[in-house]
């Protein structure tokens, strides 16, 4: 798991160096067998064989790559694990990418009242910007689309708040503060109890009320029924 430390976003707006590189995940997932990719693997059988690369005889089959192109141009520079870690700050639903640290609902109340209340309102419903709280669930259509009744994954809060909030000073919160303010928002939405403490494990384990409502796009073009 990658670790991100406080303040490391300056000047590159990524996590600080340190911790394991994102590459560990890639190696880990080599066991995953198939992928829906457009390019065939041209017969290489080794598990480690890439599915897209200049070594897999792709010249002439890709736009802009003539048959006489080399397998690699090597115009860029290889990125060290430390370099990757600086920018590799996304967080996925399985918890991948969540940093160390933790925060409680009580701590989050303080963070919220200092850093968020001006734009999202005292109870997360008043605005002036996006409403963050609505614990009323829905059957057919939602009347609001908020964390409490629309967001499918709690981990998205970490990904988004760390990257983009508070809007005028993004990147200002520590890892612990981000956990804390998420705990407070989830508590306001009646998703976790007031004595909760969130960290990488507990945040990834939160089940959001709207999780199972999401379905992948089924529009396909063509003359069939309108979707």
């Amino acid at each position, binding site marked *: 798991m990658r670790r991100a430390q406080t303040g490391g976003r300056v000047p590159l707006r990524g996590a600080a160096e340190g911790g394991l590189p994102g590459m560990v995940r890639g190696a880990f997932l080599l066991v995953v067998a198939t992928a*829906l990719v457009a390019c065939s693997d041209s017969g290489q059988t080794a598990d480690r064989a890439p599915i897209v690369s200049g070594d897999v005889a792709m010249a002439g089959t890709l736009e802009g790559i003539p048959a006489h192109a080399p397998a*690699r*141009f090597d115009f860029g520079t290889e990125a060290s694990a430390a370099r990757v870690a600086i920018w590799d700050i996304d967080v996925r639903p399985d918890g991948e990418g969540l940093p160390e640290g933790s925060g409680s609902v009580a701590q989050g109340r303080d963070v919220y009242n200092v850093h968020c209340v001006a734009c999202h309102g005292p109870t997360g419903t008043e605005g002036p910007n996006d409403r963050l709280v609505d614990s009323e669930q829905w059957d057919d259509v939602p009347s609001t689309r908020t964390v409490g009744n629309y967001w*499918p994954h709690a981990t*998205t809060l970490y990904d988004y708040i760390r990257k983009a909030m508070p809007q*005028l000073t993004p990147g200002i919160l520590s890892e612990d503060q981000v956990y804390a303010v998420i705990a407070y928002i989830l508590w306001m939405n009646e998703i976790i109890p007031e004595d909760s403490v969130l960290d990488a494990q507990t945040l990834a384990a939160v089940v959001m009320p709207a999780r199972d409502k999401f379905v992948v*796009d089924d529009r396909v073009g063509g003359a069939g029924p309108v979707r």
Partner: protein
Amino acid sequence: MPRDGRTKLSRRAWITTTSGVIAAGLVKTQTDAIKLVAQEAPSDPTRVPGKLVSELGGRAPAEEPKRLVRAQTLSSSSRTPLADLMGTITPADLHFERHHAGVPDIRLEDHELLVHGMVERPMVFRMSDLMRYPQVSRIQFLECSGNGGGVYNRDRMPTEVTVQALDGLLSTSEWTGVAVSTILREVGVRRGASWILAEGSDAAVMSRSIPLDKVMEDSMLAYGQNGERIRPEQGYPLRLFNPGYEGNTSVKWLRRIEVTDQPTHTRDETSKYTDPLGDGKVRQFSLAMDAKSVITFPSYPYALPETGWWEIRGLAWSGRGRITKVEVSTDGGRTWVDAALQGPILEKSTVRFRHLFDWNGRDTVILSRATDETGYVQPTVEQLWDARGTRTSYHQNHQRAWKIARTGEVTFGLGELV
């Protein structure tokens, strides 16, 4: 004009005076002479030399097409003046904008793209590196999936609304850059990979997941737009460009691509850019832009000054390939005729359509509907309501209508039909 009460000089007198001034050495350079001539000249442009060459051109002073800005906030948009434009290419300074935390100030020399994740060799590319890779150019549209969201509401169909305000989150450019496949080939994508995460270098660190097969097919790392470097509002110095996909996925100010085996479920592919369908389900990763067309002339606030021959003009496009047909109705959708399509008809690009119409002065409603090469026909709003309920806000590609009143005044006319 001289101040001493003389109103007009005869041409001869004027030439004599001007030549005299020049001959008398009162003006020293040719530039000064031409400035003088331009000030004093009669309005006939054949009688006076014109302006000199210049380093940067500009529009004729009377031409002032502008983007429509509704709210100047950090997360906001501006819209392309579709009714002012001809052909298909959008001048770069009129390309629509949608950003979530303002336009970042990035220096070309400082910008880097990191490509990593399920790859053989994670790499960092500077702009000079990317420029050296084989280059591709394509003329293609970009449309925000929120475009036209205002014309879906059953109870509040607008009437006095311009095509710019309704559908101006659409622009077309010639994009130039490196195919994403070229860069993925360079870093080597590992078995099991199926998505990428694209991330921007703006204060929103805009992040979207895109299927790997899509970016391998035709996505581009674009650094050029209509022959020049991409503009800051369009992602200078580097943006992802996903042809035919909803605009938000074409992440601007691109700094990172992570190859993954699953989507990341970022805020802008869960909380936003998803479609509640009315049956308790929410459609996610609705990425392709279905076929659509809009009539740009005549449209509100234009008024036809007289009956007779008028050419109905508009744009059609599809995120799934080429447009094969655009039909126009001048009787509220009862009968349809094929409009003329202006070639070249390009894939995932806008097409200009035209239909000559003899307006007899009666009230009527005009519509257009596009068909693309997959056989998909631009639906009516009722068809979308039936399929998706009445509460979705993205992908509103249904047929648009304009009402022509007896007075010649044109208003948005869908409300007349539903």
